[in-house]
């Protein structure tokens, strides 16, 4: 990995040391540290999010920040990006101490941030998205286009400025976000859980881009829960535990197991398939499901599958190939879907979302902020959400606060949701803890079918294992699961069967015990026509 520097356009023969390879940078004289955080503290009502955080990010390096859910990573990054002020501590950028009170200050200081939820306008082109809000830099015409092309080429981003964002896949959208940040002159780039939405090939591409950035002397700060990725790409890793920096380690000298122990003091779980619990009884049967987009193109095309009691069906696919539409069609959230959806013998295709939920479907949505939570409502009201017609949340049309609070506390305990109580608004929880709450909610009331989109997205390794255990236990008791995940290890480890979705069609069935992530990966991108271990026809008949 180190010898990458040698291939850099301006690398010197002795360029294995960061300091020398970067001495061309005008400000390099002030030292090699791009960002120095000292004693950063931040409190929220009921919690200390950051407490005496100390981090040095070397210029021209990729610095990973890891820690369990609620450790304070996002809070720290928001402080560095000027979204919220710290209560204490200092921030130095290139040797100068700065007070960053707005993102505009941070951008001026050369800091850029890519949030986990992309903020692009779908109906605009890449160029328009990039220029939006930064018109004063290079205008909106030829100069801007040239600049975009130049950046894209310089860092190997491979972006066509005239493509519309809605036509781009997730990986490409992320590159547009990075381009946006670079266009605004960022030399320090923060990425909060950038790989959570990416499939392995896209992760590799992203890491290629990041190495390119680092070769050009930029610094990248990168948050992830996927420790193997962190080890493969980072030059330095800082571990945060309960708001405090506990260690900064060299990735070459630690294993992911040791990292996990540093983070949570427990071991790395690996999903292990257990004895199959699949029964003969069909729980969900989907036949000829089709859906057209607003432009008349088929986004779902003749989808058919069965899920049995006690079975987990995994759906593999690059994001944007119809997974969201499939889930929403089965949930009854999309009008205009055709085909049959039969839940334990009863056709539910004509039923409302509420009736489907009442029939026993649990639903973990892919976008927790848009579909899973009322961010400004207290946790117990979020517990009621989607269960407002059922015990224990309601009885005879009246919401039962006390019971709802008690059941929220049960979820908090069972799923280890880190929160000061049931009255705090959902917004105050860290991303991973929000996710745990949603999974806990959807697993309550004994669902017969769980539709789970990325159930452990943004969840730390310890909590991930706990969620897997919950799902497996429910499966033993007969739960059927439709699992969509970008995490192929999760998909392979949990599923009894995997279907690959590509451009709205199911294109192949795989046996998880015999497939490798690489094989799945190439089937998902439609590359190489990987031979499925079983044919589609066999399982459909």
């Amino acid at each position, binding site marked *: 990995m180190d010898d990458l520097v040698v291939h850099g356009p301006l690398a010197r023969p002795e360029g294995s040391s960061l300091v020398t390879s970067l001495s061309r940078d005008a400000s390099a004289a002030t030292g090699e540290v791009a960002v120095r955080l000292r*004693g950063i*503290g931040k*409190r*929220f*009502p*009921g*919690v*200390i999010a950051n*407490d*005496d955080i100390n981090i040095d990010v070397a210029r021209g390096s990729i610095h990973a920040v890891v820690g369990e859910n609620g450790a304070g990573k996002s809070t720290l990054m928001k402080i560095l990006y000027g979204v919220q002020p710290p*209560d*204490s501590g200092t921030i130095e950028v290139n040797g100068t101490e700065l007070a960053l009170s707005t993102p505009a200050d941070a951008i001026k200081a050369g800091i850029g941030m890519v949030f986990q939820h992309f903020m692009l306008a779908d109906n605009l082109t890449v160029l328009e998205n990039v220029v939006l809000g930064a018109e004063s830099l290079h205008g909106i015409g030829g100069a801007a286009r040239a600049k975009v092309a130049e950046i894209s080429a310089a860092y190997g981003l491979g972006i066509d400025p005239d493509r519309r964002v809605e036509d781009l896949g997730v990986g490409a959208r992320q590159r547009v976000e990075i381009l946006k940040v670079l266009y605004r002159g960022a030399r320090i780039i923060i990425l909060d859980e950038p790989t959570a939405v990416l499939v392995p090939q896209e992760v590799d591409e992203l890491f290629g881009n990041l190495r390119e950035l680092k070769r050009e002397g930029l610094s990248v700060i990168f948050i992830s829960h996927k420790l193997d990725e962190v080890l493969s790409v980072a030059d330095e890793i800082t571990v945060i535990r309960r708001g405090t920096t506990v260690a900064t380690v060299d990735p070459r000298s630690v294993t992911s197991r040791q990292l996990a122990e540093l983070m949570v003091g427990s071991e790395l779980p690996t999903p292990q398939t257990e004895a199959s619990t699949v029964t003969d009884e069909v729980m969900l049967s989907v036949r000829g499901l089709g859906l057209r987009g607003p432009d008349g193109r088929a986004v779902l095309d003749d989808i058919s599958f069965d899920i049995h009691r006690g079975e987990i069906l995994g759906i593999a696919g690059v994001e944007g190939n119809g997974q969201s539409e499939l889930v929403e069609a089965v*949930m009854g*959230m999309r009008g205009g879907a055709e085909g049959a959806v039969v839940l334990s013998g009863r056709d539910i295709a004509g039923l*409302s*979302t*509420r*009736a*489907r*939920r*009442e029939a026993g479907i649990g*639903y973990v*949505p892919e976008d927790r902020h*848009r*579909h*899973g*939570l*009322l*961010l*400004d*409502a207290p946790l117990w*009201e979020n517990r*009621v*959400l*989607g269960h*407002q*017609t059922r015990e224990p949340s*309601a009885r005879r*049309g*009246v*919401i039962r606060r006390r019971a709802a609070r008690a059941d929220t506390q049960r979820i908090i305990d069972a799923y280890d949701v880190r929160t000061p109580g049931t009255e705090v608004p959902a917004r105050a929880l860290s991303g991973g803890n929000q996710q745990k709450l949603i999974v806990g909610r959807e697993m309550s009331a004994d669902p017969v079918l769980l539709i789970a989109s990325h159930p452990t997205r943004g969840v730390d390794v310890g909590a991930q294992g706990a969620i897997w255990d919950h799902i497996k236990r429910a499966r033993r008791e007969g739960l059927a699961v439709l699992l969509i995940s970008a995490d192929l290890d999760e998909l392979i480890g949990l599923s009894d069967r995997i279907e690959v979705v590509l451009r709205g069609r199911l294109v192949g069935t795989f046996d998880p015990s015999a497939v490798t992530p690489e094989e799945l990966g190439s089937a998902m991108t439609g590359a190489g026509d990987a031979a499925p271990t079983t044919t589609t026809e066999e399982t459909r008949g």
Partner: protein
Amino acid sequence: MNVRLTKVALAIGAPLLALALAFAITSLVLLAAGDPVGEVWAQIISWPEARNQVNILNNATVLFLSGLAVSIGFRMNLFNIGVDGQYRVAVFAAAAVAGEGWLPGYLNTALAIVCAMLAGAAWAGIAGVLKATRGVSEVIATIMLNFIATALVAYLLAKVAVREEGSNVIGTAPVPEGSRIPGIQMWSDIPTEIYGFIVFAVLVGVAYWFTLNKTRFGFELRATGRSASAAVASGISVRRMTITTMMLSGAVAGLVGLPILFGTSPYNYGSTFQSGLGFAGIAIALLGRNHPVGIALGALLFAFLDEQSNPLQILVGVSPDIVAITQGVIVLTVVVSYELVRRYGARLEQRRVAAQLARESAAAKDPRPTTKEAAR
């Protein structure tokens, strides 16, 4: 300090701060115009006489219903500007029906009340349907419906009206004597009575509180207001909710004019019927933070200011319109002061947490860095 006590203090502090700010700004306006600030306030803040107290309560009853109607929409993020048109359509319908006297006594009253609620609901429902099916902003739709209501009511009034003797005021036939709602005598020495309708208004307030805060329907309404996309995923039909909420808001708006119709002479709807009650409701709903008790207090405040400012022209030679400025400014200062108090509360809470942690860590003989931070 006790945590709960602090919370209560903050909750009361916010509206008081808003009032103080509004009074300060009004005083500045008075000063700039060269009016006698002290005398104006002395008149407004003086204790009202018995007759004025009754007027304040009566006016507050009407404003309370108007505020409730608006706030039902607010709870779902719907801006029902159309309460004004809705109550006029509704009170006209009620007056026309009650004036006919098809049913005897209070049956006639009940029928008229139902008609008023239906008319208000239908009028607001138009905006609801437009929003749910065509995506037309309810703000635009209700504003237009206000205009249409004015024209429609004037047109229909001309058809059914009877002309009052010796005047060119036209109005519907008066509500028969047996169908009027008797007032409540508070002081035997004055003739003005409190609207009997006030009892009904209180019941509506209680029903509002129960429905919105306790029932599943209320939960769904508030959830839709907070996030329509999450509502969809939770099995709530946002379209149906939009239409239902608008209609409910309109139904309550339909009650706004009824205390006047059934409680004051000439017991009919005429061209001089009180107007503009719907707009005051918007300010009062904001002031009362969509809580029925808050709305009641806001309505009382607005009614108080209106009543107390009446004699300003005669006593100190200042136009009573000055309180309209105060009322308008209150709406703005309320927003500001709630935000200020919220931030202050958050800071207090943080300090409390820090102090508590400091104590705990001191007890554990493991002084954490926060101790030092908390001290400053």
